[in-house]
């Protein structure tokens, strides 16, 4: 793990009208670290994640990615190309095949040749375990396969950071495993990951840190062992009892 944090979040606010979805959050994430963000719905987890690649513009504060402030970056697209994002509802491009989904941004943003983009695209499809689905359209794929294509699409850009926004919560139970396996491998390979998810199995196996959010604030930022064995706050205990009760 490097010394310099790759993501620096400083006193970030994001408001929707009167609602403060993110209300003064500060956090740092080091290179190669896997941080899982948990918390009740409406806590601001997804909003914070979307702030990191400026899909959600911040109202105040600073976010610095690998030394570049996203609000002052001369070209936000360059910053975004270094940050892969995986969405809850996959957001694959339905008019393109799995492979075309993966090659599009490589060609348009990275300016790779068609041949090179396809080569890298196939490598990524193999990495997520479905090279045989290269020519299938998203509608012909199961949810788990679609999410794996979406992960491959993000990885093909060679990002320095991967953001996951509840990547398994729209999946049928039998498909969660295959997506988590891909994420677990990625974590072991040393990818910097910020994951909004309540998959406690994944958290135990892969997370270096767990960040618990509530009402737009970080209320606990600790290791998984600490969190499960010795939570500091009452709200953490309550929340954990709720989700652990459900998942086990």
């Amino acid at each position: 793990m490097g010394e310099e944090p790759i993501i620096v979040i400083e006193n970030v606010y994001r408001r929707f009208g009167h609602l403060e979805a993110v209300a003064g959050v500060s956090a740092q994430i080091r290179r190669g670290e896997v941080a899982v963000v948990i918390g009740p719905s409406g806590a601001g987890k997804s909003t914070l994640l979307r702030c990191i690649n400026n899909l959600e513009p911040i109202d105040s504060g600073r976010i610095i990615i690998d030394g570049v402030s996203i609000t002052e970056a001369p070209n936000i697209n360059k910053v975004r190309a270094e940050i892969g994002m995986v969405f809850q509802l996959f957001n694959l491009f339905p008019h393109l095949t799995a492979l075309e989904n993966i090659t599009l941004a490589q060609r348009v943003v990275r300016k790779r040749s068609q041949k090179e983009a396809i080569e890298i695209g196939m490598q990524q499809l193999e990495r997520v375990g479905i090279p045989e689905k290269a020519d299938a359209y998203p509608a012909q794929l199961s949810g788990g396969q679609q999410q794996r294509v979406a992960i491959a699409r993000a990885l093909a850009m060679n990002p320095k950071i991967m953001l996951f926004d509840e990547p398994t919560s729209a999946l049928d139970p039998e498909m969660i495993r295959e997506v988590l396996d891909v994420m677990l491998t990625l974590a072991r390979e040393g990818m910097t990951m910020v994951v909004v998810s309540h998959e406690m199995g994944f958290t135990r196996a892969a997370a270096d840190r767990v960040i618990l959010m509530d009402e737009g604030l970080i209320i606990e930022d600790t290791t998984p062992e600490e969190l499960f064995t010795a939570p500091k706050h009452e709200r953490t205990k309550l929340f954990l009892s709720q989700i652990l009760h459900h998942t086990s």
Partner: protein
Amino acid sequence: MPLPWDRFPWWVLILAIIALLIILATLFSNGIEGSVDIVQTYAEVFVFVLGGLWLTLQVTLISYTIALVIGLIFGLMRVSKNPILYAVSTLYVEVMRGIPLLVTILYMGFVVTPGLREATGGAIDLRGLPSAIIGIAVCYGAYLAEVYRGGIQSIERGQMEAARSLGMSYMQAMRHVILPQAIRRILPPLGNDFIAMLKDSSLIAVLALPDLLQMGRLYASRTFRAFEPYNTVAVLYLVMTLILSTLVRIIERKTAIG
């Protein structure tokens, strides 16, 4: 593939029966010789208006092509977050949709064209077809801008977000992700506007341009017969629009599946 009963185009059958009844009635009331006369008259009318038919098709195709481009540009401006682009495009759309096409065409023909000619010392001369084509294209550009806007806004927000998260610029995301999907969805309404434009192109007859309607009117005023030329004109428009609307329906069915 056999069509199910409820999908059978009954209206075509009804139309054919009505046409047959009219022909039979004409035969019975005029006898064979009289009917031959009538057929000859219609043939004469048809040959006379044929040139107008081509002009109508030409004007429609050219105007529509221009309107597609205008519509795309202003449609994109209508979904833009830039307040100036949005205001300009909204102004254009609201103004053009609020003025009857007939008024626009007359305005182009008798106000804008002579005005431009005078102002530029004859360098820009839109007399005749150009003024009519521009009038129709500018009016339909506003309609099509709204069709494009609707299509673009019908695409889920996540598509733009996914494209932007990969580092694409707004315009790259539009071009490669949003528009290909939006255009597929708006093909049927685009087709319907093409049909509407084909019919509305008859309004250029007020500028005395020899389109299908104008040729019919010319024939009527020369021969003092209104019945045959206007029948012919009406049937020709109808045949064209029926063929086109069948095409639109086929496209509709295909895009509904895909």
